[in-house]
């Protein structure tokens, strides 16, 4: 799943630590989400989207479903 968290964070000049503080998670969690090593829970994904003032699907873009031939 594609994540725009890093782009949105940098646009606001926030550090990973600042974003983590605002979300109430660890900096490692923010880093893992940005580097796509970890996909957040639905509630955290909604909290991230709310924080950036976006819809969740504008922050996390799911892969296109594979179509059978």
């Amino acid at each position, binding site marked *: 799943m594609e994540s725009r968290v890093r782009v949105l964070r940098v646009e606001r000049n926030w550090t990973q630590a600042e974003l983590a*503080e*605002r*979300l*109430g*998670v*660890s900096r*490692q*969690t923010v*880093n*893992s989400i940005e580097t796509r*090593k*970890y996909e*957040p*829970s639905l509630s*955290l994904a*909604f*909290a991230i*989207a*709310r*924080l950036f*003032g*976006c*819809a969740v699907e*504008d922050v996390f873009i799911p892969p296109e479903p594979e179509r059978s031939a």
Partner: protein
Amino acid sequence: MATHPTAEPMPRSRASRSGPILVPLLFVLAYLAARFGLESLRPGSMAALLVALLPVPLFAWLLVSVVRGVRALDELERRIQLEAMAVAYPSALLIVFSAGLLNLAGFRGEGDWDPPRLLPLIFLPYWLGLALARRRYA
């Protein structure tokens, strides 16, 4: 594009107030007190039974403080702990069952089942699992 109001910071769960050091320390002290106390008591006596069970309430307290500590973690930290436990728990079972079978096979040693001897073997897989999980999400 649909927008949501800006979120308030999510409050993190409160960590255990007992502290990560105090409760395990009290448990170890109670265990040592029971262990040395039992040496001077007649085996099978009521006093020996009470002294042997002395660390149990402290272990229950330790258990509660560990569960509270886990609840205070954020979701990624919880997943890391879960992955560490997924390595540690089956490994601990493997160690205990293998040690039991080796005992039956005649490979016995004095104090084989002593907790101080078994603890490193039980914690080693946990630390290994923790290191692997931390590396995975680093």
